[in-house]
């Protein structure tokens, strides 16, 4: 049974309408395939109304890989292979990513809950996909699709451009100022330790960080 939202959050129609709008806005920003909403100046500090419906679902391996492949301009089969050979989603981590294997393993139903295997599989798939994209972009800067601006060295503007593109491609929205600031600070930290390798490292790791957010994995 779901608690009555009115009792918890609002006593006036205007307040309720605003709360609903925020909630729908948050949902739309996370799920829509339409043009990304314009960046809000301080979206990270906007008040939100927590969901009481709790119907969030894990995307599942097929969708995760498909979304990542599309975001990173990669063929699905290039996204992730364990030991260079075994497809991560289709072979190695199928069950932990919410799939089934009825023929050899007689697993007919997906696991009901996520597991440590799921958490690790997600990290491995996303890290691999991001690394493949970064490797290709830095290997052929003229043909780069995601990280072009930083392939020849990174300025803050270049990092911001890449950051925006990561959000637009992976999360289908513009990043907030706070999110961009986080990415910029992350780059600076990398630059202080990795030197000339920082742009290359940033490409993979920033992509990994964004693509493994809950917003990217659940709907």
């Amino acid at each position, binding site marked *: 049974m779901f608690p009555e939202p009115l009792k918890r959050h609002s006593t006036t129609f205007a307040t309720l309408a605003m709360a609903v709008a925020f909630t729908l*806005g*948050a949902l739309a920003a*996370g799920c829509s395939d339409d043009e990304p909403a314009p960046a809000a100046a301080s979206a*990270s500090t906007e008040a*939100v109304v*927590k*969901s009481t419906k*709790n*119907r*969030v*679902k894990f995307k599942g391996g097929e969708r995760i890989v498909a979304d990542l492949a599309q975001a990173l301009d990669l063929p699905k089969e290039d996204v992730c292979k364990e*030991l*260079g*050979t*075994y497809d991560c989603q289709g*072979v*190695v*981590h*199928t*069950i*932990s990513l919410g799939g089934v*294997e009825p*023929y*050899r*393993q*007689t*697993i007919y139903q997906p*696991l009901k*809950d*996520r*597991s*440590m*295997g*799921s*958490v*690790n*599989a997600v*990290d*491995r798939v996303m*890290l*691999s996909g991001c*690394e493949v994209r970064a*490797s290709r972009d830095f290997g052929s800067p003229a043909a780069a699709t995601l990280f072009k601006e930083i392939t020849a060295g990174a300025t803050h503007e270049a990092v911001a451009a890449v950051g925006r593109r990561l959000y637009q491609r992976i999360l289908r929205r513009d990043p*907030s100022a*706070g*999110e961009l600031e*986080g*990415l910029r*600070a*992350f780059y600076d930290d*990398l630059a202080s330790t990795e030197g000339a390798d920082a742009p290359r490292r940033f490409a993979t*790791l*920033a992509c*990994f*960080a*964004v693509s*493994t*957010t*809950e917003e990217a994995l*659940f709907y």
Partner: protein
Amino acid sequence: MTSHLTRRNFLTGSSLIAGATVLGNPRGESRAQATGPQKAPKFLFVLGASGGASLLDGPLAIRASESPNAATINAYADAQVTSPQGSPLRAVSYSSSKVGPIPYPVAANQSDFITRRGKDMLVVTQTGTSVNHLVGQRRSVTGNEAWAGRSLQEVVAAEYGAGTLLPNVHLVTGSEFTARGTDGAIPLSARGEVVPDALLFPLGLHGYRGIAGGDRGDLIQKARALRDGKLQPASKFSRVFEDTPAITRFRALRGAQGALESADLVSKLMIVADGADYPLGKYGLASSPSADKVRARFPDYAKDPLEAQAALAYLLVTQGVSVTVTLGANSNFVYTGDNAYGSGSLQAGAVKNLPIAFDYAHTSHRSAQAFMWQRMYKIADGLIDLLVNTEYAGGTSYWDHSAIYIATEFGRTKTRPANADEFSTGHDLNNGVVILSPMARGNTVLGGVDPATALTYGFDLQTGAPDKGRTTAEKEVFAGLLGILGVDTSGSGLPDVRAMRRV
């Protein structure tokens, strides 16, 4: 289901780690740390003999000379049934040129195993309550819901699993020997974790080692900190849905990720060898320090799923990861020959598992039972050998603290056409179970078999004296197993089956 199982397509189309939940103990202490004031753990291996393993074709075999109805019940020629000197345990010797219509010879001889392991072997007669495979399997590990619906494995994991990362692991799939219990009081960490494929399972125990881009763990941690500390809190989606069970559980799992990675299970549990099929070294990975040992004991690990499971079961326990592991034959026909099934003869030694395992007795009882008992004994023997030769602590071996429960869902019907050697059998409630453990009353049969009818009867639960007036219930076997394992069953209502414990 028949499948052609080459090494390559054993991996293709199968998947690995399914569930590894580390919520009970995210700190991942070593065994040494965890067993301070606690009692020493006991280890339970449930070896699923799926399909209906008849004890009359194993340790309770009847000699023809013992039965007035030898021609029409499942009694063997005297020469086919042997016993070690002074032992009540029986060993069947059986050979056939084929297994029903499968043109594959069977040559089974159980005497070596009985001779070698009989001192730690306890046979307990039992009459079950279901001839349905899945229901019977579940009841064989829950005692027919004897203790609030808890499974043996969950009880052992809850009792001894503190300090382990994956206390209860299920390596066999498609079976209710891995049934999830229904008692909500069992902690989540004690629930079974499903591992569909044993070979590359360790890859699911680390978030980045061995994968492209994962060469710098320190940088991965920074990226995770960025995500968890900056990006996620700024995400409206995360803030709106942060209280949903799916999200809170995912965050809890992420919180335990570091402990799992620090335990280096990706190495410790890696059975496969570095080579063309598994280029571990190229990706910064390595085999387990114990891999050579398990590969030598289970040389068909790469092609035979049950050997791979047995190898991993040993590593899971001796590396301090688990206290109970369930493994077993599933229903797949396993053929590891180099030729495609259907193109020429079946290669010698290449049939590893019959279609539907013990249940192939519906087609050809004796050859199917002989083949599968040989398989079960071989796996158990290999596992025992490894455990015996691995020190646990204080001069004791892991075997000294272990029990292997050969679980099966029911027996087979007892009759046959007059003097038939090949015949069909159905499911039968009346049967027994086999327990291998130095903690069990060894070289013993509790209960007995009526040679006239081939039906088993029970025993006095305290003294072990045969009692033809009763049969043993699933609940009693369940309770007796927990007693062998030293589990505190206070308040459970379970009987004390003292007769099953070694004095």
